């Protein structure tokens, strides 16, 4: 067991717990974007920053990946944290302003404008979809490709994946693409359920792990 202090309050957590878990255990709020229960933490978005340490020795860390340590002194809303958090929100807004998730976070933290060059990316490289696909869907159909400003998400060679089970999990968790399947191009539709009026998941797959909402395919009555 590890005892640490969050905003001055002591809390005891299991070894291996992250700061975020300790913080949430006490009920303090820290915003997150790339963190999701059931998926391994990745620390990609930095939105969950908190300040740790004392005196000259303090620093900002991402709470979703930082392991709880004995005697650590954590601040979740110091001026430094608030400034860093706002900056990160601005950067997210600069990257994908069309994202409802990001807009909501910005509204909540009263960020109304951002100071960077505006872009309209459909992906913020949070890696949620990749982890969803690998860890919950056991498919490993999509992954990170390239690096630096060429980093992107997709299938190998951008070709249709044999591993993809068309579960829609990746779309479901994505905070940026907000790309609900609309079945405009049959090739690109996620499951085709709306078009063929039969539950494709049940025909094609033994295990139904559909995360699409409101994909109604599997709720259709069986013959």
């Amino acid at each position, binding site marked *: 067991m590890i005892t640490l202090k969050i905003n001055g309050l002591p809390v005891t957590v299991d070894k291996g717990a992250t700061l975020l878990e300790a913080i949430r255990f006490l009920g303090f709020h820290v915003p997150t974007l790339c963190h999701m229960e059931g998926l391994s933490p990745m620390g990609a978005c930095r939105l969950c920053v908190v300040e740790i340490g004392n005196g000259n020795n303090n620093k900002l860390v991402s709470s979703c990946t930082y392991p709880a340590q004995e005697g650590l002194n954590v601040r979740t809303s110091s001026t430094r944290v608030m400034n860093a958090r706002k900056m990160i929100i601005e950067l997210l807004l600069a990257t994908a302003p069309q994202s409802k998730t990001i807009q909501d976070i910005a509204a909540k933290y009263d960020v109304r404008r951002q100071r960077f060059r505006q872009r309209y990316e459909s992906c913020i490289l949070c890696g949620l979809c990749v982890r969803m696909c690998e860890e919950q869907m056991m498919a490993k159909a999509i*992954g990170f*490709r*390239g690096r630096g400003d*060429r980093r992107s998400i997709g299938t*190998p060679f951008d070709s249709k994946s044999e*591993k993809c089970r068309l579960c829609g999990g990746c779309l479901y968790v994505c905070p940026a693409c907000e790309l609900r399947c609309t079945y405009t191009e049959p090739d690109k539709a996620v499951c085709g359920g709306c078009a063929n009026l039969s539950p494709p998941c049940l025909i094609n797959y033994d295990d139904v792990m559909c995360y699409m909402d409101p994909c109604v395919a599997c709720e259709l009555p069986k013959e």
Partner: protein
Amino acid sequence: MSADSIRKIIDDTRDQPANIIVVLEDIQAKFGYLPEESLRVVAEETGQSLVDIYGVATFYKTFSLKPRGQHRVSVCLGTACHVRGGPSIEKAFQRALNCKTGETTDDKKFTLETVACLGACALGPIVVVDQHYFSKVTIDDVRRVVRKTLEGLDKVDITKDKSVFPVEIICSRCAHSLMDPTFLIDDYPSVRVTIYFERMHGWLRLSSVYGSYNIESEYEIPMDAVVNIFCPHCHTELKGNIPCPECHAPMVSMVVRGGGVVQICSRRGCKGHMLDVTGMN
């Protein structure tokens, strides 16, 4: 490409720890690029997922998924080379080869690429063609480099070539000069180090001239022997931090006075080097 040849490469590298990278390097060495089919075979044979392999293949700049030309031209656009005019050298190559960066000429002779810092900043702008380094390249040099490459870079006469330059090597630990003005190789002071191999201990002198592979030693060093190299002043082993890209033997690392690092392979006869300033090959 045949699936069998890929399988053989995988078998040959089974005992290596950083397996995937080694396998991909070997495939690339064999075909000049990573054919799509080969990555699928690697995935099948190693049991690793194609997504991960594709991720590695697209992460590292050494790997190419498109066929490359016979000669690879890399223009350094690291910070130092950038301020010394790297981008205009890049443009000059684009004009001279009539191809864009990252692409291959129509006759499949050249592929033009850029790199970020080759560790020889003091000698920039640096251009590397097939592992041959050209220093302080000017726009006027560009056509000459292209012409030389077509003539065959190995034929370059090192004593007449203007791009040949002697460098001053120092120990990375104690910063003593390793230059020996009393012992000339290629008419320039040689680089003196201490070597140890097969329980023998003695001196070795390397040419300080770019492109020269001349060495002299107290002992006859057999081909393929891997030697340990030490600073004669502080006796620190001059160890590089990466294995030889060619043969995976440890690299020997030395510092160029004024900036830059030379890494050479510690295996006699191997052409692996990160900066071909000295040659003990």
